């Protein structure tokens, strides 16, 4: 090591500061814990939350009568028999409290005639999804929670620190090691509980709707600390991600709320409706499930019936301009600035990696099998089974975040710090050797190409349509990239050089990619978001979860019974 690391000490460390991480920090603090909340970008401005434009499912029953049990039933149906029923029930029941709590924090849920406005997203039996106008749900949620985490002095927020390893002593997590992005200084943080809230993995796919910091960090940190993952084969491809013409300054999944409010017609390259040929109904009503719609768009394009860019047409040409303006106000002008006049032209859409159903295996307290290690939000696996219901991602962030913070704070109350600095030495030595800590290692640009290669590989071989051959091809290449990467220097971090971060991000992405591929190879059926060209039927015997763990360097998957209620 070149110098002593900067050391901090806290009861609860939260890694990742989107909605789940911020809610976890709030809950841990109000249950008595001192909290450090770190994000490798800016607190409350990165991750998936800030990108979410709509919608939040919760049975508040403001628009029409509803119960959380109905929400739960819809969640299980969407999950294709594979939901962890305990987690799904917690999600649906407690979403109601969280929505009201955030209403009290003035998040600004859209209202009419004194009640919250709720819309029907695909797969919901009643209008259940609250939102913030116009296409502003994620930013409003992030702003609201940023305001709450800034209250009081129990939560210390740190922007620009990347966590690269958890510190494990006698099988329990006691803290973490990271680096400061600005100057590359090594950082150690002692904590009796660590909550992983760094979101999902969609950044490992070529077409994705993720922030740049969503490359599977949480899963890799959990695996390497000895925790298990579940359901890693189930990556949700959002069916109507924006494809063309070029659109900037907007979320690529923005057509979702347009369809909730206005319908819109989904057409193939020959201007014909086609979803009905794949066992679902669309016809301008947007009720077809995400997995079926994604699959249908890809198959139409493969059959030569795609749009010029290889997707499908989405048309609002039949919707009067006044209706467009009533529903989306200033967004219509933003679109015009992008050269898109919805009254005159259809736009091209196609599937885009959007969310990960799988994730870290936890119990109802959001605790992993490793003492001291918790998870929250999209990083958690199981609640959404093989296909997530629209609108369940943000309530999952709120509910699981609140639980992780609360249970972690209670577990560490009154405990003395178990931290022994010697347990962090391996990670610190490796960080220094790879170029952190202002070391004299030259940046190693070799691995930049590898990150791009991984995104292409995952998209082509472990994407919407999978075969034994494609998965084996991907697995072999991922494994060789893992060893190639180990041999390459990372580069400096000083002066905001992102080489060091790029190296550690890629290490996480490769391990996560291997977990997805191993699980996908092992699931010899088609179900929900997992489509196997060589196993097209759903196999009732595989109505089980798949548990993924690390054995030495090797990722292993095995089936286990589902958590029933």
């Amino acid at each position: 090591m070149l110098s002593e690391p900067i050391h901090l000490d806290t009861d609860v460390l939260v890694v990742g500061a989107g909605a789940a991480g911020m809610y976890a920090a709030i809950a841990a603090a109000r249950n008595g814990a001192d909290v450090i909340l770190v994000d490798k970008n800016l607190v409350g401005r990165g991750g998936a939350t800030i990108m979410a434009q709509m919608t939040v499912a919760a049975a508040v029953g403001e628009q029409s009568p509803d119960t959380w049990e109905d929400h739960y039933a819809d969640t299980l149906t969407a999950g294709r028999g594979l939901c962890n029923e305990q987690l799904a029930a917690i999600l649906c029941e407690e979403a109601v409290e969280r929505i009201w709590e955030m209403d009290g924090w003035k998040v600004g849920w859209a209202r009419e005639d004194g009640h919250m406005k709720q819309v029907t997203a695909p797969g919901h039996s009643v209008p259940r999804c609250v939102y913030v106008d116009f296409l502003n749900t994620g930013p409003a949620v992030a702003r609201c929670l940023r305001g709450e985490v800034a209250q009081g002095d129990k939560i210390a927020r740190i922007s620009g620190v990347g966590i690269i390893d958890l510190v494990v002593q006698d099988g329990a997590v006691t803290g973490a090691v990271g680096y400061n992005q600005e100057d590359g200084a090594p950082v150690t943080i002692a904590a009796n509980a660590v909550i992983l809230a760094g979101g999902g993995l969609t950044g490992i796919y070529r077409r994705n709707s993720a922030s740049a910091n969503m490359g599977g960090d949480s899963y890799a940190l959990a695996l390497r600390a000895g925790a298990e993952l579940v359901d890693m084969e189930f990556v949700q491809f959002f069916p109507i991600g924006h494809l063309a013409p070029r659109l900037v300054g907007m979320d690529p999944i923005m057509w979702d709320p347009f369809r909730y409010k206005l319908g819109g017609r989904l057409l193939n390259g020959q201007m014909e409706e086609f979803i009905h040929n794949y066992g679902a109904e669309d016809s301008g009503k947007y009720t077809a499930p995400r997995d079926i719609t994604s699959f249908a768009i890809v198959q139409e394009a493969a059959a030569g019936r795609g749009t010029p860019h290889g997707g499908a047409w989405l048309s609002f040409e039949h919707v009067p301009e006044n209706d467009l303006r009533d529903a989306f106000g200033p967004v219509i002008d933003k679109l015009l600035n992008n050269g898109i006049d919805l009254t005159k032209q259809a736009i091209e859409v196609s599937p885009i990696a959007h969310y990960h159903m799988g994730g870290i295996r936890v119990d109802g307290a959001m605790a992993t099998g490793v003492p001291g290690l918790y998870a929250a939000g999209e990083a958690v696996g199981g609640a959404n089974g093989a296909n997530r219901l629209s609108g369940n991602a943000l309530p999952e962030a709120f509910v699981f975040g609140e639980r992780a913070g609360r249970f972690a704070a209670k577990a560490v109350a009154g405990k003395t710090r178990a931290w022994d600095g010697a347990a962090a030495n391996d990670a610190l030595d490796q960080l220094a050797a790879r170029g952190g800590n202002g070391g004299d290692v030259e940046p190693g640009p070799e691995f930049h190409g590898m990150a791009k290669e991984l995104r292409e590989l995952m998209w082509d071989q472990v994407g919407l349509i999978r075969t034994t051959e494609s998965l084996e091809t991907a697995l072999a290449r991922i494994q060789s990239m893992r060893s190639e990467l180990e041999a390459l220097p990372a580069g400096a971090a000083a002066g905001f050089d992102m080489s060091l971060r790029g190296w550690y991000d890629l290490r996480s992405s490769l391990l996560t990619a291997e977990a997805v591929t191993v699980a996908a190879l092992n699931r010899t059926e088609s179900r929900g978001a997992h489509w196997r060209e060589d196993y097209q039927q759903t196999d009732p015997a595989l109505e089980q979860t798949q548990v993924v763990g690390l054995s030495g360097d090797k990722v292993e998957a095995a089936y286990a019974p589902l958590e029933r209620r």
Partner: protein
Amino acid sequence: MSGIEKQIMTLRVQRGGPDDTPRFDEFQVPYEPGASVLDALVWIRQDVDPTLAIRYACVNANACKECMVRVNDKVDYACTARLTSEPMTVEPLSNKRLIRDLVTDIVPPKEQLSAVVETRKK
């Protein structure tokens, strides 16, 4: 995959840290109409010079607000400023402490690692 032919434009980017005399590197950037300045900067990092320091998180959605820079001497978001066929100049914000290249210190004071180290001293 797109059939649209790419054009080439010239992007001048300020390089260097707080103690350096700023210099400008010129890049010949291939682009499709509608592409953003951030697209060009990400392309430069990916395919030409991975040491270029830039800040961004949300990738062209104008949600994270991290990519604020000066484009042709006007403060703008790199993710919504469009590339033009005319040469363009990108510089860091002038009213924030320069870290390196296009990155300035925009972290709120209380969220700095150094500030937290101070307040958490026992």
